[in-house]
């Protein structure tokens, strides 16, 4: 579904990501781990079009007959073809309601034009109702419906993370990118989150690519894992292989 071919990202003299190659297949949960500053978020930023890779390319094939080269697309176009993400430092629409946050996630699929929206013509009201119903469904699924009228910033941290996932799901992604979804959570919450990720993957027919910097967290949930260190790919394989890989152990020694 996602093929990352030899991408390099340079910021001036800093090589944030160096000739990284990876693949995410349909229906997989793939992890991307590495110590802080390894270049993980930069990989996500290249996949979602925030940065253009200095070298290399990324190809997204939501279905077999459909294939897009991501380096020519802007972030909003990438969202439209089915890749959506969450952010390491939560980026909700803080002063908007929980419901509005999820509702806005639907906007990219809106077909009605501006004037038919303003004048509430039937084609718009029909779409709007569907958007509300879908947002409601997502909020219920993610156990946030009770808070629907609260402002996003007033939610506790864990719920903000879930709201970000709800908002991303509203865009109807095929590939969901989660950037350190467990950051700031205790082991108990982290465990629940991983269960939850597996659940939404089944429920919404997703393929998931997930960043984490604590290795243990992703062991239970990922099918395969890539390890980055100082921008370079140092290992990949099943959780078991990764856990016992001497290079990985070395990269993590003294870091955590």
């Amino acid at each position, binding site marked *: 579904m996602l093929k990352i071919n030899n991408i390099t990202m340079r910021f001036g003299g800093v090589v944030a990501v160096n000739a990284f190659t990876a693949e995410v297949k349909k229906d997989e949960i793939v992890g991307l781990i590495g110590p802080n500053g390894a270049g993980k978020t930069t990989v996500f930023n290249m996949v979602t079009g925030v940065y253009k890779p200095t070298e290399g390319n990324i190809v997204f094939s939501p279905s077999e007959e459909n294939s897009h080269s991501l380096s020519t697309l802007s972030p909003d176009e990438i969202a439209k073809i089915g890749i959506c993400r969450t952010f390491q430092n939560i980026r909700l629409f803080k002063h*908007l309601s929980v419901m509005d946050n999820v509702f806005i996630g639907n*906007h*990219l699929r809106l077909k009605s034009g501006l004037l038919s929206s303003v004048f509430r013509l039937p084609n718009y*009201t029909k779409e709007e109702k569907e958007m509300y119903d879908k947002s409601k469904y997502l909020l219920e699924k993610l156990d946030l419906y009770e808070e629907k009228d609260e402002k996003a910033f007033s939610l506790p941290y864990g719920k903000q993370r879930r709201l970000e996932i709800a908002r991303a799901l509203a*865009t109807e992604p095929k590939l969901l990118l989660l950037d350190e979804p467990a950051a700031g959570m205790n082991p108990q919450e982290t465990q629940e989150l991983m269960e939850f990720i597996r659940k939404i993957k089944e429920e919404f027919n997703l393929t998931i690519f997930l960043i984490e910097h604590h290795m243990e967290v992703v062991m239970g949930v990922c099918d395969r894992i890539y390890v980055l260190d100082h921008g370079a790919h140092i290992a990949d394989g099943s959780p078991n292989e990764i856990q016992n890989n001497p290079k990985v152990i070395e990269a993590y020694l003294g870091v955590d």
Partner: protein
Amino acid sequence: MEKKKLTKYIVSMILAIIAIVIANIVLDNYKVRILNLCFIYIILGLSLNLIYGFTGLFSLGHAGFMAIGAYTVAILTMSQETKQMTYYMKPMVPFLESLNTPFLVAVIAGGLMAALFGFLIGAPVLKLTDDYLAIATLGFSEIIRIIIINMQSITNGALGLKGIPQKTNGTIMKFLNDNFDIGIKPSINLLWAGVASVVTIAFIYLLINSSYGKAFKAIREDEIAARSMGINLFKHKVLSFTIGSFFAGIGGGLLAVSLGTIDPTLFKFSLTWNIILIVVLGGMGNIKGTIVSACLVTIAMEALRFLDEPLKLGFMVTEAMPGLRMVVFSIILMAAVIFKRDDGSLKSALEKVRGRYAKN
């Protein structure tokens, strides 16, 4: 939106219009003029709030868009004879001299012209980054003034335009006046400004609560997140900016009709400043607040007019200090910014002041 809510809004719109008709009958000319300006400033305040308060684009060019609307309306409504008399330094372009449209057409054309310029200014700047929008729009509104001063055969240059026809009694009003002794004033500018402002409020309200309006707010809240949710930043910013410019043009056109006289000095930066004041005072992204603050600012502007004239302070009389009014206004603006909370409405500012002196 629910049917019941919609009915409620339609009913309140009709009531508002009836109230305006009554106001036009019972109020004296001075009050009618101020109320008229209130309506116009509501339109202007809302149009800037759409751009700045709802979408987060900082524009300093409102006076420029108003000038375009004002001149369009003036040129389209003035009669050929009036034009011939007014353009005595340099005759008007013959085509424009004979051009004359009904009032409503002229006002809408004023809005569309302003929207066109809004698009032409906004698109190149917003394509790259909106950091420079403030500078670009500020430059634009000064350039527009200079163009107006220099295009004498179209705009009559620095002399300005006089004798812009007032909107007088329509057929229905004439009928009422002839058959019932209620003394309706000949001018019905107020009705037009009132209806335009009710329509603008409704339009902005419906826009802001539609999916597009929510996308505008998302952009204001966090561009990076909005973009990652598939919102095309450029398209939505240009839409918001162009619609805002449209209503600025409408407001400018109505202002021209209400004043009857316009010239390039009217559209200096201080006019933009007044509207920024309305938006900041009323609260960024707050429709009700903008309506209230537009009225307050307009009334205060009139009430504080004495500040620009010689002041009698007990025994002594100060010299006239033109501009003192603006100083007082700027102080109000600063106070508003200081007292502004997150939702930034005037109400919360007042609560804050009260909170200092009252316990609860």
